[in-house]
C-alpha cells in the first residue's frame, strides 16, 4: 500500500518538483500551500508523513504542526521541516512538537528522499 505524504510549501514550483519526485518513488502525495490549507486537508485520512516548510503565509509550519498533533488521527505522524531557520529555539520548539528532521533549504531532492525513506520506507 502506497504511503501518503502531505507536502506543505508556499512555493508552487517547489510543490511541483517535490510532488513529481515523491510520486516517482512510489508515494502518494497531497499538497497544501500553507499551514491553514494543510490543516484543512487533515480530514481523517491516513497520512504517513508530513513535510512542511516553516515560513509560510496565513499559518506558519510550526503552528500547523502543533495543531496537527492535537488531532488524534495525526498525533503520531512524523514530520520533516524544510527550512532556512536554523535558530536553535525554533529547532527545539519543533522538536517538542514532534518534528523529527530539519532539512535546511536549499536542499537536494535525494537528501529529502533519503530522509523520507528512513522514516517511512514504501
Amino acid at each position, binding site marked *: *500500500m502506497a504511503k501518503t505524504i502531505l507536502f506543505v510549501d508556499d512555493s508552487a514550483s517547489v510543490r511541483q518538483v517535490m510532488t513529481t519526485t515523491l510520486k516517482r518513488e512510489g508515494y502518494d502525495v497531497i499538497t497544501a500551500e500553507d499551514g491553514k490549507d494543510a490543516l484543512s486537508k487533515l480530514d481523517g485520512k*491516513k497520512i504517513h508523513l508530513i513535510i512542511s516548510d516553516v515560513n509560510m503565509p496565513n499559518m506558519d509550519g510550526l503552528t500547523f504542526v502543533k495543531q496537527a498533533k492535537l488531532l*488524534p*488521527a495525526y498525533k*503520531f505522524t512524523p514530520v520533516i521541516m524544510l527550512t532556512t531557520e536554523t535558530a536553535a529555539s525554533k529547532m527545539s520548539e519543533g522538536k517538542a512538537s514532534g518534528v523529527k528532521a530539519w532539512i535546511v533549504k536549499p536542499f537536494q531532492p535525494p537528501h529529502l528522499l533519503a530522509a523520507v525513506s528512513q522514516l517511512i520506507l514504501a
Partner: protein
Amino acid sequence: MPKKKEQGNHLAIEGEFTIYTVGELKEQILGALLANDEFEMDLSAVEEFDAAGLQLLIMTKKGASALNRKFRLTGCSAAVLSLLDLSGLASFFGDSLTYAKSKEAIA
C-alpha cells in the same frame, strides 16, 4: 479506527493495528485476558501493522503465559506475517501460529 468483532474471548482486528490504535486495543486485550482462560485474536484483516502493534501482540503473548492463559492467533494478514518474519519473532508466536494454521487447515 480499527473495526473489531468482540466476542468475549475472541478479538478480530481489522484495518489498522498500529500506534494509533494500540492504546484502545490494549485495554480490551488486557480485559479479555483477565476474564478468560482462553483468548484468540484474528489478525487476518489487519491492513497496517507496525512495531507498536507487534509490541502489543508480544505483550499479549507474554501476559497470557504469565496469567497462565491459552492464547491463539487464529489468522494473520500479509502485513502481520511480514513483520513477524522481519522481527524474527515468528517462532516466539510459533505455537499460537501453528495452532492458527492447523485450525485453518481443519476449517
